[in-house]
């Protein structure tokens, strides 16, 4: 199966591990990814917070390129997914708005193709059975909690996947297929603070501390996520959080594709496990996974 691929700005820099391992996982599952040429930033949360038309125009410019190729779009970043999926949904049902946006971008976009999260796209493209069969090294010993974040499961007015917005299960299923022990916990979809990472880091610290404490309470030895912003927000400031809240946090935070790549036989070096603020190698070493 072939998907258009929209990496987004974060995967170019702070989440490059996600980009590399997502592509590797797709290759292993024989899913072809066609990167949308000359894609532009989706606008994240900022576009819709400042203008009514901008988020749609930015999304349309990206989506129509995939539409021309007749491809649905696989989107690793949760915020990009939210923007692209919400825009596409709205433009499909609102002809007047679509006309306005087409006038702004000077093209003809029909809102025919669909964006999916990368997670959804591999389940659609390969299926859980194939995802499981590709495992070369089961991730035994890892006690995972899956952190979905708030963006991918809470689209309004209509959710575009069948996930329960308070208790989604797709990532859990995939990580279980990797041979890890996946634990239930309370913060699956609690917000990490998202775009406030620069202007209001105290929010990130408070929310991150809450989330990590819940992961610890569930007896997890690592958190797995599918969003670059969540991953950075949870991981980077653990030292600061520990100081402020007088606790000792040292919780590894992986991208789910990093662990999939590991289970599929890629080396620690290739995956880039060194590029973590909270070192992940002691845990992986202890469980004899690297």
């Amino acid at each position: 199966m072939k998907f258009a691929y929209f990496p987004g700005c974060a995967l170019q820099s702070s989440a490059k591990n996600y980009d590399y391992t997502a592509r590797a996982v797709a290759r292993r599952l024989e899913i072809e990814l066609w990167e949308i040429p000359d894609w532009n930033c989706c606008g994240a949360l900022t576009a819709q917070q400042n203008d009514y038309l901008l988020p749609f125009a930015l999304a349309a410019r990206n989506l129509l390129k995939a539409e021309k190729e007749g491809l649905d779009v696989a989107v690793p970043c949760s915020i990009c997914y939210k923007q692209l999926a919400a825009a596409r949904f709205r433009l499909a049902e609102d002809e007047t708005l679509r006309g306005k946006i087409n006038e702004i971008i000077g093209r003809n976009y029909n809102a025919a193709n669909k964006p999916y999260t990368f997670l959804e796209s591999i389940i659609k493209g390969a299926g859980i059975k194939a995802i499981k069969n590709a495992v070369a090294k089961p991730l035994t010993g890892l006690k995972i909690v899956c952190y979905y974040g708030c963006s991918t499961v809470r689209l309004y007015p209509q959710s575009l996947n069948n996930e329960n917005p308070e208790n989604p299960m797709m990532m859990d299923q995939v990580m279980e297929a990797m041979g890890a022990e996946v634990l239930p916990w309370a913060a699956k979809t609690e917000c990490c603070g998202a775009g406030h990472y620069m202007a209001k880091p105290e929010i990130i610290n408070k929310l991150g501390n809450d989330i990590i404490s819940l992961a610890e309470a569930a007896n997890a030895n690592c958190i797995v996520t599918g969003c670059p912003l969540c991953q950075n927000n949870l991981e980077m400031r653990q030292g600061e959080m520990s100081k402020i809240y007088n606790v000792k946090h040292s919780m590894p935070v992986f991208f789910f594709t990093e662990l999939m790549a590991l289970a599929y036989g890629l080396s620690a070096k290739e995956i880039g496990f060194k590029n973590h603020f909270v070192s992940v190698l002691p845990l992986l070493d202890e469980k004899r996974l690297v």
Partner: protein
Amino acid sequence: MEQVELNIACRAAEDDLREIQRLSEVDINKCYQCGTCAAGCPVAFTSDYNPRQIIRMLQLGLVEDVLRSKMIWMCIGCNICTTRCPRKLNIPRLNDTLRIMSKDKGFLTSEKEINIFGDLFLDLIEKKGRVTKARLALGFNLKTHQPFKDLNYYPKLFFMGKLKLLPTKVKGTAEIKRIFTKIREFKNKGGKH
């Protein structure tokens, strides 16, 4: 404590409220103040008003108070409130509308940093088509006069290869510029959504 004549406030705010409803597509009259939104809101702890109070204030016609509030800027858009609301009110969508209206009316926001961040972000998209955290951080630190903010993280980020110092530029910057220009034109002509 300031006294407010609620019947006068309600009547005076009718037009504004109609506009807010039209633009946000949220009918605030559906809210019966159960407070579930406030209980789940991740930023209510650091805000002046919680979502329930914002809606109540709008119901009472206190539009300007809402447009000057911190809450509308703090909203992350996580939609926990909408998920749990028994009337399925899309509060983040309401907050987006209130933010835009507040900015249009020129109300100075106490959350200047959030605004600075937002403006920088959009500026980078307009000029380059993509956003690099490095450029964003640099601009933000300078504009908020905090040159050393988070500086301790940058060396590690750099050595991990997570900090792109040279910004990437989209080839179709003219197309991006066109988007922003056309939208400005639309606004200047008094275009209504």
